């Protein structure tokens, strides 16, 4: 019969009160875990989406991220293949890598001149096989919305566009894009045909690649020398990019096609080398090694290494927002649980004052009394935590299998609502430890009061 056994029996003594306290703790923990699980799904999902598309780290020309977005040609990385090879074969980095691949981002104007429409696009020139391989990264075992680029084995002129771009370029019917409503063309000015110079460039391009279908578009971009260049492209598919702002501007093409458009017959360059790691936690180690590598072997080029958080500030903002919400809710629930347990323990101290006096009289030290009440609090915390975790897992299972979905702000399709409780051990362990700490703190004050009772006063208590 140790303190633990006595504490457990004391809890069972007033079962209704203990159950009420446990219920408050359980509900509190369930609320924290469900919201935490939802938060985890959003942050991990956002991270996964970005890492799949752009990697964990990117080697870029210095200041390209800040200054070069609208002028990629001025911030290209020459001799990029040597850097790619060096990274891939570095003995420190190699075990951490899942992919190292070059990419060229460029802006331009895509036009479907037969329909008399055009729009600006942000194009990505990628090594298609590498890109599709990167989409398989799913370290958190989430539901992946990644769609591989259907460009493997296709000709250089093949491209994929966002459904928003397809809508603007009136290609919905030709590409058989589901749920894509084409609006009537608003005619600006009198002419509907392309400007003469663009038409001439387009015609020149057409002569190289004979047209076979109605999915063709022209893309106009500025070359490295500042001159306009046009590529005649064949759209093989329109895919929903999820995020509307991206979907309305997205165009993916073969890296060689993008380089041809920008650099012509000059030495091709890229705007970034994307590095995807096995685990996000490897970023600091990989970055440190990359920094050494660039400083020693490629010190002639002004390069910098950026991680996905820097490249995608919205990720950090979303994470910060969700964390602040989670923190606020956790504190709120923690305070409620704290006062509930404190009230329960205080009542127990008052009810058991004579018992406390008796225990002290027969030789139990003050610390023994304190330990007894804290032990009761910890037991409540442990039982409440176990019940809370079980209930949260059950509720999360129900939600995850309910098929509920929602469309986040700015997104163009609905996401399944998923609650990642079991899949997020940090959340699970952190919440349980947090709850137990709250119970210790809340039991500590009444326990201290109990231990400081004057024996003769306690024995006289009615």
């Amino acid at each position, binding site marked *: 019969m140790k303190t633990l056994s006595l504490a457990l029996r004391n809890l069972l003594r007033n079962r209704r009160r203990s159950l009420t306290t446990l219920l408050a703790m359980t509900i509190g923990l369930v609320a924290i875990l469900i919201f935490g699980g939802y938060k985890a799904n959003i942050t991990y999902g956002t991270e996964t989406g970005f890492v799949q598309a752009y990697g964990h780290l990117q080697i870029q020309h210095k200041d390209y991220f800040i200054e070069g977005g609208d002028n990629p040609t001025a911030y290209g990385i020459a001799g990029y293949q040597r850097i790619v090879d060096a990274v891939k074969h570095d003995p420190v980095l190699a075990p951490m890598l899942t992919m190292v691949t070059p990419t060229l981002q460029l802006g331009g104007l895509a036009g479907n001149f037969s329909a008399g429409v055009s729009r600006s696009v942000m194009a990505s020139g990628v090594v298609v096989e590498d890109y599709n391989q990167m989409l398989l990264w799913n370290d958190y075992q989430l539901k992946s919305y990644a769609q591989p680029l259907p460009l493997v084995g296709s000709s250089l002129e093949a491209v994929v566009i966002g459904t928003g771009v397809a809508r603007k370029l009136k290609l919905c019917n030709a590409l058989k894009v589901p749920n894509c409503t084409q609006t009537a063309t608003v005619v600006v000015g009198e002419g509907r045909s392309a400007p003469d110079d663009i038409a001439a460039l387009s015609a020149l391009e057409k002569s190289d690649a004979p047209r076979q279908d109605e999915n063709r578009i022209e893309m106009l971009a500025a070359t490295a020398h500042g001159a306009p260049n046009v590529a005649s492209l064949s759209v093989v598919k329109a895919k929903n990019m999820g995020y509307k702002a991206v979907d309305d501007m997205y165009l993916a093409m073969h890296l060689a096609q993008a380089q041809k458009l920008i650099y012509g017959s000059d030495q091709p360059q890229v705007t970034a080398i994307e590095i995807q790691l096995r685990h996000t936690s490897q970023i600091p180690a990989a970055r440190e090694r990359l920094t050494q590598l660039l400083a020693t072997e490629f010190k002639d080029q002004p390069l910098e290494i950026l991680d996905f958080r820097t490249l995608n500030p919205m990720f950090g903002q979303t994470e910060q927002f969700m964390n602040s919400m989670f923190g606020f809710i956790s504190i709120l629930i923690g305070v409620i649980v704290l006062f509930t347990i404190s009230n329960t323990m205080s009542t127990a101290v008052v009810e058991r004052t004579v018992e406390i006096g008796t225990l002290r009289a027969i*030789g139990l030290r003050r610390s023994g009394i304190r330990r007894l009440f804290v032990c009761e609090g910890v037991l409540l915390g442990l039982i409440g935590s176990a019940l809370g975790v079980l209930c949260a897992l059950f509720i999360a299972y129900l939600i995850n299998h309910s098929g509920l979905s929602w469309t986040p702000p700015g997104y163009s399709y609905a996401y399944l609502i998923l609650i990642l409780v079991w899949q997020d051990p940090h959340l699970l362990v952190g919440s349980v430890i947090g709850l137990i700490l709250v119970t210790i703190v809340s039991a500590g004050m009444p326990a201290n009061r109990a231990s400081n009772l004057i024996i003769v006063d306690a024995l006289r208590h009615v």
Partner: protein
Amino acid sequence: MYPVVLKQVGKTYHLDSVDVPALIDINLEIRSNCFTVISGPSGSGKTTLLNLIGCIDRANQGEILIAGKEVQKMSNDALSDFRARHLGFIFQNFNLLPVLSAYENIEYPLLLTQMPAAGRKQRVLALLDAVGLSDRAQNRPGQLSGGQRQRVAIARALATEPKLVLADEPTANLDSHTGAAIIALMRKMQREHHVSFVFSSHDPQVQAEADDAVFIRDGRITGVERRTESVEAAV
């Protein structure tokens, strides 16, 4: 050696801004192996004196020696350990722990002295047998009568084999028949275990059984009556 010696002991309670003297200039020696009854009218200071002897309250002045130890100078923890090893308590309301069985209530003080499990079991079973409750070992206090509860309390008080047991009105909540049986049991245990019992009591049955009687009034000892010869025993 006397198990209890009080020299010039005084105790004053501070109630709001008023000082209320509860004990004044107490000089007392309790003989070993005796039944000592402290008697006096309500408010005379009986319980206060018993609390000081039991080391659950501190005097404002004077010297208190229990089993040869000057308890006034001991720290709180040292006093707790001292009580656990050297003193037994019997309360008017029995004060058993309601969540523990009779066996566990008797065993509890032994846990505080870190006694090994085998020794504890032997001691508790012997005490249960001595107080006639072997068949009630697993009953909780709520399942026992008043007399049975007080028997458990007596067994608990003697569990650590103290040389001094303090009993505050031990028969006050019992009918006269049960009270007489409890007094007889305490007397039997006192003789078998060579222990000194100090009571505060109004009960004529207890007073009649006493070896020594201490009379107290208005916080002062008004008389000590030695009714039997001293029975020396090791303290």
